[in-house]
């Protein structure tokens, strides 16, 4: 056929490849009409409103049916793990926290638990610090599930839940700001405890928050559960049973939607989770709707845990939030002064005026950092997406020798072909949304 600059085609070993640059649509259509096959390769590129982040999906379609899905990741690779090797153990928390940016507290906690294991101070972390860690983690679980539900609904076409979800999320972020100073990427959990204590009156504020959230979650649920469009779009979609989950190493709501009640908070408790009463939510349909229900119900369980933690925190008032060992504990105390949050003047008076030892500790900890005995440790937490673990290798120095994060989204995203092949194009979006991958964690 004559050369057409707008719709050229060429023969390859895989068949005819058409290059479409706009222009003459008619000649393209006639060309395709002559071809016998209907296989189309579509690139849902890294920039896409519905791929939940910078994820690239290369789809082979036959009509509306997907025959092959290939996932391309790496578009957000930041070299966080290598960067952490050049910072001391406490500074590395600021890098860890930006990995899975929807659940920063979980990243920090996994890393800090691994470092504390290496230091051998897991038993020395104060009860109050552990309780505050649990509080922050459960609040973070709520805010992360809100984004998951909101964006998942948005990607499937429902815009209302997004506004409701973000309204709830803003309330939780306000709580984060009051406690840590930042809405996201707080670097609040440090090896040895947490950076600073809760401000005065925070527990009663949080009780109000829990009451409001409990009421508001009913709005979210009412929008989607029972909605016939939502049910048709999510029931039976993205099926992945228990065998598939275990061989792919999938944990979290995806695993619990198959019926297995595997939750690290119950099975291998950390940070004092064994002291709190809550249920492990499962579903038995192993589809998008099941995972959606798991996430919705986990919100209520998180609220239960938060209430129990608040009661506990009230009894532990006045306890320190860092380990007692001054050679490890992060020295700075922050206080609200006339010009904003800054170094507590009492602390400065102490280190400059009265205690030489405190000054030395402060200096050495901030410049050099503490030394961690050589060895390796692996600590896992149950993040909103699954098992998030930090594998930390130390060579005895002030800087991590190697930190590797086992990110749940990295494993969970591998199941996209298993969930989507054989289904329709529109169901891929639902399947990916139900996995809830956070590309920052996938690519690190």
């Amino acid at each position: 056929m004559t050369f057409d600059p707008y719709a050229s085609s060429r023969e390859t070993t895989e068949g005819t490849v058409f290059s479409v640059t706009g222009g003459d649509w008619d000649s393209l259509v006639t060309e395709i009409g002559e071809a016998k096959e209907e296989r189309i390769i579509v690139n849902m590129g890294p920039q896409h409103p519905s791929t939940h982040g910078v994820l690239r999906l290369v789809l082979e379609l036959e009509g509306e049916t997907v025959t092959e899905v290939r996932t391309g990741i790496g578009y957000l690779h930041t070299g966080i793990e290598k960067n952490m090797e050049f910072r001391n153990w406490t500074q590395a928390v600021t890098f860890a926290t930006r990995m899975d940016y929807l659940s920063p507290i979980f990243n920090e906690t996994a890393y800090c638990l691994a470092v504390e294991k290496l230091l051998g101070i897991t038993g020395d972390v104060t009860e109050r610090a552990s309780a505050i860690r649990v509080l922050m983690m459960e609040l973070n679980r709520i805010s992360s599930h809100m984004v998951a539900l909101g964006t998942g609904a948005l990607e499937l076409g429902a815009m209302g839940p997004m506004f409701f979800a973000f309204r709830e999320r803003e309330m939780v972020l306000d709580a984060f700001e009051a406690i840590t100073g930042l809405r996201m990427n707080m670097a609040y959990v440090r090896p040895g405890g947490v950076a600073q204590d809760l401000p005065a009156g925070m527990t009663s504020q949080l009780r109000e928050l829990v009451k409001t959230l409990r009421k508001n979650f009913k709005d979210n649920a009412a929008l989607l559960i029972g909605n016939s469009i939502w049910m048709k779009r999510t029931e039976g979609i993205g099926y992945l049973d228990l065998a598939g989950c275990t061989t792919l190493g999938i944990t979290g709501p995806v695993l619990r939607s198959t019926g297995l009640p595997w939750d690290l908070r119950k099975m291998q408790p950390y940070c004092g989770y064994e002291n709190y009463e809550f249920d492990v939510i499962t579903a038995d349909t192993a589809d998008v709707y099941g995972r959606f229900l798991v996430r919705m119900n986990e919100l209520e369980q998180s609220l239960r845990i938060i209430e129990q933690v608040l009661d506990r925190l009230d009894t532990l008032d006045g306890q320190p939030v860092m380990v007692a060992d001054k050679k490890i504990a992060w020295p700075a105390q922050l206080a609200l002064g006339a010009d904003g949050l800054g170094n507590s003047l009492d602390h400065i008076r102490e280190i400059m005026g009265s205690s030489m030892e405190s000054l030395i500790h402060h200096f050495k900890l901030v410049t050099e950092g503490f030394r961690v005995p050589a060895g390796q440790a692996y600590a896992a937490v149950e993040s909103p997406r699954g098992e998030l673990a930090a594998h930390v290798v130390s060579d005895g120095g002030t800087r991590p020798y190697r930190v590797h994060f086992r990110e749940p989204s990295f494993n969970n995203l591998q199941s996209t072909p298993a969930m989507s092949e054989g289904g329709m194009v529109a169901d891929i979006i639902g399947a990916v949304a139900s996995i809830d991958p956070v590309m920052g964690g996938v690519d690190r």
Partner: protein
Amino acid sequence: MHMYGAAVDWNGINCEVTKSIEGVYLVGLEDKLPSGILLSTVEGLAGYMRKSSVWPATFGLACCAIEMMALGSAPKHDISRFGMERFSASPRQADLMIVAGRVSQKMAPVLRQIYDQMTAPKWVISMGACASSGGMFNNYAIVQGVDHIVPVDIYLPGCPPRPEQLMDAIIKLHALIGDTKLGPNREAIIKEVELAALNAKPTIQMKGLLA
């Protein structure tokens, strides 16, 4: 800088459409309109209309994207007040690219392609420290500032910047858009800016008190 010209009938006025590095504009229109005071009225009107309904392209990459989503969807910070709630996934229909998040080496060509696919007039806000300068990730994997790849109009620091800070950046961008000159005034400003950029002192030479 002519690339091609085509005769066009715009509301009964015959003019020519030319394409240059700044974008498409109706050259003939300026010839037909009176210059001076009345041109500034046209500038004001065009600027007002352009800034009132900027459609951002979804280019959320990492943590900043979540704050951008909070600005877009949270009832607390409502981007609809600017008429910008319609995030455009298709770059062809987008005016503003908010580069929200860290740009990795793999993502850089994609970023440039999306920018190229946007139609003029277009603006870029580099949101957050990672987009503006590489942020805390000074390493092999991250492009140290998207201004290596696309021309940036507003740099917004923060890690991540609060939605209110992003709103402030958008308001400043609106002021910039509203003041855009047309026709010969625009060419004059472009010449000025280029001259200033060519003569600008690099940061390391601005010794200040050290000199």
